[in-house]
């Protein structure tokens, strides 16, 4: 019984480790080898002094040949460096160590995305199910139009609108910025709720459409007719039998969307002044701060790979047929 699942997990895990190794190699090539000119100059920021350049060379081991450079790079990543784990060095422009900032910012972004994802699922699933069960009803049509509006609303505009309404006009919510949950749970929620809504609305609309169409397909399946023929309540037929089959494909979608958002919440973070990964990537690019750009790139790709692993595991758990492929 457990054998197929165990074998599947092992295979999937080995594959993930391989992909992460390849990611480190590709990022190394892109950041160290491919661009012409002195790598030290690129890492050193906008105002490189001879001292900084010397430090960059020493930190990154640039005096060695490329193979050794890669191994050193890999070693720093895996084992960490003097600035923390993973070993991503130090921003020569701002003078700040990368790793601690990375963790701090990742925490903010993860809260933003997870909260947003919970919200968009909490809206998208019931709306999608209702639209499918009552396809072409008034509810279905209203939700379709509302969804189209949500999908075509620019994120920055929505964010600013919400801020204007709930902060400046109504004064119901405090302004922008991030307050840690441990400082004040209530204040934390008050600061996060608008970013969550801003992030979630587009996805809620998309997920409602996807779940609606999955659900309509599923409701036409033979096994749903069987469920009804068994005399189950309509609630159970829809809420358990049909919903279960309709949600399984959404797992993969969710993993992809969360993965994409890890580095892609730039606008929401900027509008709401949240110091997350998205705003960091922007700062890194504007300041030509290569260590920052490299760090976010690696984190995003690794997280996407891990999310796809998690999605596959959840999928295999929910759909037993996958384990045998």
């Amino acid at each position, binding site marked *: *019984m457990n054998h197929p699942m165990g074998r599947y997990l092992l295979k999937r895990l080995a594959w993930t480790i391989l992909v992460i190794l390849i990611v480190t190699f590709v990022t190394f090539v892109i950041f160290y080898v491919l661009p012409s000119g002195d790598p030290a100059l690129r890492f050193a920021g906008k105002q490189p002094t001879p001292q900084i350049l010397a430090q960059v060379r020493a930190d990154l081991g640039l005096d060695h040949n490329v193979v050794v450079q890669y191994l050193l790079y890999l070693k720093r990543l895996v084992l960490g460096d003097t600035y923390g784990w993973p070993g991503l060095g130090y921003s020569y422009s701002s003078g700040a160590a990368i790793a601690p900032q990375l963790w701090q910012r990742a925490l903010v972004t993860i809260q933003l995305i997870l909260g947003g994802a919970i919200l968009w699922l909490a809206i998208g699933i019931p709306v999608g199910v209702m639209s499918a069960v009552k396809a072409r009803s008034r509810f279905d049509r209203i939700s379709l139009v509302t969804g189209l509006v949500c999908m075509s609303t620019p994120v920055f505009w929505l964010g600013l609108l919400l801020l204007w309404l709930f902060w400046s006009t109504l004064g119901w919510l405090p302004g922008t910025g991030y307050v840690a949950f441990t400082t004040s749970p209530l204040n934390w929620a008050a600061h996060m709720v608008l970013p969550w809504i801003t992030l979630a609305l587009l996805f809620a609309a998309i997920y409602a459409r996807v779940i609606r169409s999955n659900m309509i397909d599923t409701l036409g*399946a*033979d*096994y749903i*007719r*069987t*469920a*009804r*023929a*068994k*005399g*189950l*309540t*309509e609630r*159970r037929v829809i809420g358990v*039998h049909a919903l*279960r*089959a309709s949600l*399984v494909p959404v797992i993969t979608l969710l993993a992809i969307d969360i993965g994409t958002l890890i580095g892609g919440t730039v606008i929401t973070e900027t509008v709401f002044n949240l110091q997350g990964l998205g705003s960091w990537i922007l700062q890194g690019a504007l300041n030509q701060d290569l260590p920052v750009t490299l760090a976010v790139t690696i984190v995003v790709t690794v997280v996407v790979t891990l999310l796809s692993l998690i999605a596959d595991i959840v999928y295999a758990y*929910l*759909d*037993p*047929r996958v384990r*045998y492929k």
Partner: protein
Amino acid sequence: MSTPLLEIRGLSVRFRTPDGVVCAVDQLSCVVERGQTLGVVGESGSGKSVTFLAALQLLPPGAAEIEGQILLNGENLLTRAPAQMQAVRGARIGMIFQDPMSALHPLMRVGDQIAEIVRTHAGASRAKAHARAVAALRSVGIPNPDTRARQYPHELSGGMRQRVIIAMAIVLEPELIIADEPTTALDTTVEAQILELIDELKVRRGIGVVLVSHSLATISSVADTVIVMYAGRVVEYGTASDIFSDPTHPYTQGLLSSIPTIDHGRGHLVPIPGSPPSLIDLPAGCSFAPRCVARIEMCTTERPTLTARTPTHVDACLVPPSARRITPASVPAGTGDQ
């Protein structure tokens, strides 16, 4: 006379579609007695499934207009509210569907799929429901039912899955089983086993069985009475011996002579030429007339009504009995084999 287990009286089912009104079932009446099998035969699209889905209120709500009566032990099921109908489905009437590959939920263990019937209808505890599911699996001849109950549908063969579906249909010991083409998707050896199982359940538990099939051959060994449908209407209805030894309707005769039998051999296969009419705007006369070899002038203008040939045997045909085609029984056997 005692009330029959199931009596269908004047059932008509119409669907409104963008192309027009589909008259899927027209004035169908029949009876199923306890401990007997009613075979329902007709080409694909003749309204067999719709008839029994209507009986269980399983047609898509709003799409179908249903007239007539479905009497289960004398009680009209069509007047039951949808929520009350749930108490009948799965508990008093078990349903077996055509394709065992798609009729089971792919993401649920087969034992759970049976147990949830027991939990819903009998309010049994989880453990008790599971025990009954395992017992049901055992009673339909599944070896190692304990292990099988924990497996998923894709781990079972087609024949096994159909047994699981039969176990689902009988777990609450219903009075009636409706099997809609239960063996169409299975190969012949498995088909024989499944038919034998259904027949055995009928005998052992004294339940009524409706066995729907597009082929007379399938039901020949198990049916006690047979209803032959064409384009939503009953064309012939009688006991199995009436239908198989003395078929009177040209359509039934045609169906019988298209069955390959061992003594007739393939050389005698006479498929009925043509295909069934569209159920939208049926022709004015007999629906079968365009394909009928015995057709007379009247057939294209007048609609035949069911007429008794013997007390147990009715058919709907305007052609005088003497002018209808010879029955396969009267074909001299073996002439083509030399």
